[in-house]
């Protein structure tokens, strides 16, 4: 996997002859990669390979995995729906207090997840500020339901989306938006047909972060949505319980989660992550 070898690879519309790779970049990059991936090696070594398959066949593992994937994906969709417009607002509309709002967006990141879960309970719980009203008016209760898992995950993961998309928006050349305006495009049309396609790599990056974070989310979920098999027990919660009883199983479950997420992310086509 040494990046050096890669130089032989073809670069579609690339430079005639690539210059030497600068070691001052490649060295820290490889170091960084090793740092991120090596602990995985640790897990792989500790994993109880002989019993692995047997464990995987257990139905509750698949159940938890399915729940994790569904919830993380729905949560990512929710984040995209709400977060991309929020990023646009922060990047393109100059309103007073914008800097403060931008900083507030990071709140769920800084809040320890368990406290985030408590905060969600305080607001959306049955006795919470909004939860009370939701239950009285619509008969909806969110805690301890699958919807609650999605909300907890979305709450924790949305800042990643918002902040990366805002970064992408600020990096994008606004003159294309001007050109679109001269063609009679409303701000919404501009956003949809010009801005969004141009910042797609940033949105995809944000969505990847968001999805991965949602997939791994534990603290807020267990606090807000509880830990009921089938409805709210996602893989990280299953891992937590497995740690209580058999640590090896916890490693297996983690590896399963990792493998699935790596497969999903690796199959993202390069097209999605590249500028037009």
């Amino acid at each position: 996997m040494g990046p050096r070898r890669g130089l032989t690879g073809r670069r579609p519309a690339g430079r005639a002859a690539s210059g030497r790779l600068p070691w001052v970049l490649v060295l820290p990059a490889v170091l960084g990669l090793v740092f991120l991936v090596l602990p995985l090696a640790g897990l792989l070594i500790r994993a109880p390979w002989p019993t692995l398959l047997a464990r995987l066949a257990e139905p509750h593992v698949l159940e938890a995995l399915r729940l994790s994937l569904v919830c993380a994906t729905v949560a990512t969709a929710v984040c995209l729906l709400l977060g991309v417009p929020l990023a646009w607002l922060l990047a393109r509309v100059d309103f007073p207090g914008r800097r403060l709002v931008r900083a507030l967006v990071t709140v769920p990141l800084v809040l320890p997840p368990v406290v985030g879960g408590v905060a969600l309970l305080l607001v959306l719980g049955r006795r919470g500020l909004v939860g009370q009203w939701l239950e009285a008016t619509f008969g909806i209760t969110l805690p301890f339901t699958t919807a609650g898992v999605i909300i907890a995950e979305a709450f924790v993961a949305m800042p990643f989306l918002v902040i990366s998309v805002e970064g992408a928006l600020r990096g994008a050349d606004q003159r294309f938006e001007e050109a679109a305006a001269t063609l009679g495009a409303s701000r919404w049309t501009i956003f949809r047909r010009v801005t969004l396609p141009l910042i797609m790599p940033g949105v995809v990056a944000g969505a990847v972060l968001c999805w991965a974070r949602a997939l791994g989310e534990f603290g807020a979920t267990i606090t807000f949505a509880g830990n009921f098999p089938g409805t709210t027990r996602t893989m990280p919660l299953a891992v937590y319980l497995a740690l209580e009883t058999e640590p090896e199983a916890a490693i297996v479950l983690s590896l399963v989660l990792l493998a699935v997420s790596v497969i999903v992310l690796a199959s993202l086509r390069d097209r999605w992550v590249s500028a037009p």
Partner: protein
Amino acid sequence: MSLRGRLIVTRPAFRLDLTLEVAPGEVVALLGPNGAGKTTALRALAGLTAMSEGQISLDGQPLHVLAAEQRPIGMVFQDYLLFPHLSALDNVAFGPRCQGVAKAEARRTAAALLERVGLAGHAAAKPRQLSGGQAQRVALARALAVRPRLLLLDEPLAALDAHTRLEIRSELRRHLADFDGVTVLVTHDPLDAMVLADRLIVIEHGAIVQQGAPGEVARRPRTDYVARLVGLNLYRGVADGTGVKVGELLLHSSEHLDGAAFVAFPPAAVALYRTRPDGSPRNLWRARIDGIERHGDNVRVHLDGPIAAFADITPAAVADLDLTPGQQIWASVKATETHAYPA
């Protein structure tokens, strides 16, 4: 008057202040040196640059209160700004789509326009797969596709090759002839300006220095920039009868004038002599050769002296006279070839 307005844009170290009045169907060319404010004026008309003061009305309706997307404009940018993620066809279809035209219909319109600018074969190409000139033509088609009331063209032909330029210019001319809206065109090419525009407006340092019909401007330039644009030697002096005093030199012309005046003559009217000639030309002075360069079929000689001037002579004459930079020489212009008019 269909377009009427006063445009004021203030920037540190630059101020644009123009009064524009353009009739329906009229094509106005904005000319001026680099950095004169032409692009800024177009951007203000388009609503892309905020005016610090002033107002614009189009067909009697105030324009400056509208956002860019609400103005009935079409604009070609100096650097095209084609949407990189859309094909040439979709770039052109973008405007009609925004106006609510159905997709198939918009694409048909776009295809027809691409055909007209000679790019039917590149409809599916992404902007980065187009050459500079191809991109510029797509940008032109894109601006025309919205059927604007006000067409703003920022050097729309600059990247075209001579051949294509001729064709696109004719195409554009036909289009503009049928067009009853207002067109404001920025160009550096005098020929484009002459061919396409009904009226020239010359801007320097953000202000209008001359305007009028192309022929009028070409015959009676009022600034150095315009004079060079139309290829004349131009001087400002004080007239007294048929003589105009320019610095130390008295230039004779056939017109009678008094007071501040311009006097102009074409470089081809300048004759050069190694020794003082003894003939009819009334205007004669001693000059120093500052530079010599090919200029089309002729040779252009830069002259220094009491007045700076260009002289166009044939290569044969250069050889005969054995001209070299630095040399002292006599220059003359017949009074009938000089043209004097009030400043």
